[in-house]
């Protein structure tokens, strides 16, 4: 039994490594992506400077913290697949062509298989597309990055949880292909929602009133707003950190659970043709 569990863990590790390597081969695309994230970072940074000049302390951030928000966002955007990308189109395509039947026959759980592959992809993009924009931003602007290694460690845990939440949501989109023949409309809507509600356009702490409270409680907050706040020490103390990470873990569990239910319903729908 234990032997089998170890075999499983090893399998998912190999799948994750495959995901990492697969994206590592797109060298030019990665460099192009870094360039784009950096350009966007500069544009957004200037608009935030104008905004925070006008309203110092907006959303509970000083200007350095607001700029940190910009550059950390640009660094996490590809890893979290916040503006699209990732695997959901691939599942949809496999459902459409029927290749999903092969996936179902693998001696592995469908959800865990895709989670492992997506974590591999995210790990590559965190390193490949995350580091350079943040360094570029910190060279040109004054950022509020912490010196405390524990804070960075907490940030990494928070980023990982955010990536799992992002995966779990996109897995639901992928599975919808069992019911909808063409997923492009749904994917686009999902991207819209993700850009707006993750805090990529504007930190969620700037959203006013009850609407602001609502957006900060939704799962998209777990993908960007919470990790950035953890890095900047907005959730101070052990209690604060536990609350922030617990919020993310809660959404991860709920969404993965819904994914399992949907997966069970979807696999019952599969009709394998031919022999």
């Amino acid at each position, binding site marked *: 039994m234990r032997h089998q569990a170890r075999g499983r863990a090893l399998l998912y590790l190999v799948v994750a490594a495959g995901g990492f390597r697969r994206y590592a081969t797109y060298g030019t695309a990665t460099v*192009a992506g870094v360039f*784009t994230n950096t350009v966007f970072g500069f544009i957004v940074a200037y608009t935030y400077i104008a905004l925070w000049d006008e309203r110092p302390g907006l959303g509970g951030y000083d200007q350095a913290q607001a700029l940190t928000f910009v550059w950390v966002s640009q660094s996490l955007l590809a890893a979290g697949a916040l503006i699209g990308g990732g695997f959901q189109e691939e599942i949809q395509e496999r459902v459409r062509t029927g290749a999903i039947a092969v996936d179902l026959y693998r001696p592995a759980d469908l959800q865990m298989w895709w989670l492992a592959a997506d974590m591999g992809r995210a790990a590559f993009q965190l390193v490949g597309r995350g580091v350079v924009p943040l360094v570029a931003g910190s060279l040109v602007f004054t950022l509020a990055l912490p010196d405390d290694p524990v804070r960075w460690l907490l940030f990494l845990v928070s980023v990982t949880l955010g990536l799992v939440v992002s995966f779990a949501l996109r897995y639901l989109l992928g599975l919808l292909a069992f019911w909808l023949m063409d997923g492009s409309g749904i994917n686009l809507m999902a991207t819209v929602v993700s850009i707006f509600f993750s805090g990529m356009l504007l930190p969620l702490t700037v959203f006013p009133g009850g609407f602001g409270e609502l957006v900060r409680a939704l799962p998209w907050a777990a993908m960007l707003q919470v990790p950035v706040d953890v890095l900047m020490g907005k959730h101070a103390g052990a209690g604060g950190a536990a609350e922030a990470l617990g919020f993310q873990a809660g959404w991860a569990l709920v969404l993965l659970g819904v994914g399992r239910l949907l997966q069970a319903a979807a696999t019952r729908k599969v009709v394998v043709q031919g022999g």
Partner: protein
Amino acid sequence: MAEGAVLVERGRERGPEAAEVVVRRGRVVEGVRGYGLIVAMWIRSTMTYRTSFLLSAFGNAAITLLDFVAIYIMFSHVDVLGGFTLPEIALLYGSCSASLGLADLLLGNTDRIGARIRDGSLDTMLVRPVPVLAQVAADRFALRRLGRVLQGLGVLAWAVSALDVDWTPGKVLLVPVMIVAGAAIFGAVMVAGAAFQFLAGDAAEVQNSFTYGGCTMLQYPPTVFGKDLLRGVTFVVPLAFVNWLPALYVLGRPDPLGLPGWVAYVSPLVAFAVFLPASLAWRAGVRSYRSTGS
């Protein structure tokens, strides 16, 4: 194909120069015709999944509208940004959104060229009797992108009604000219970006940083950005002509770089001027193409 051959024949009778002209005109006609046929095919195919089309057209409008909601939220905290009011920024936002939407609708899929070079499917396009650029531009033509155009025009209409502008015939004329010329400038950037991918491989994102990134910048007033950046987008990649310079004139505000007022009207010329190097780069790109052989 046959039509082209006939044109060539007719041209030959009139000597080599005439043949060249006729062939060239033939190619443009062929390109536009081919583009139209491919576009019609993709529209028919899109309409097979009508619900999905409506959802994605709506999503496309919403994706940019949420941008504007973010600006709106900013203005719930401030009265001016970079010295500009919300309706003034809405003018910038709406015009650049409509221009980019138009360019994206007509030419946006040129950024897929990198993927086509990588998987070798560009080869199929080279042997077809339609200019490659027309094929690449019409490839997977997405009618849903009309959503962004309509959304941009909607915000623009609101801006125009909310603004307190002393409208002259020149200013009224300048608004549609700004949209169309802006679309042409973005289109030229897209073609140049596609040509760059022959050199660099899959670098669609670089193109995006000039088009989408450019539009994100142009929806804010130029006063927000540094002078060096302004010089760059005025004289190097002339994005400032997409909407900043015409819109500043409409709003009666001076250009931060101190350019004279008449530059507001030169956007169409600038669009023409940037299409020349872009199309030359495209031709050089196609000529330099070596198939992956896969």
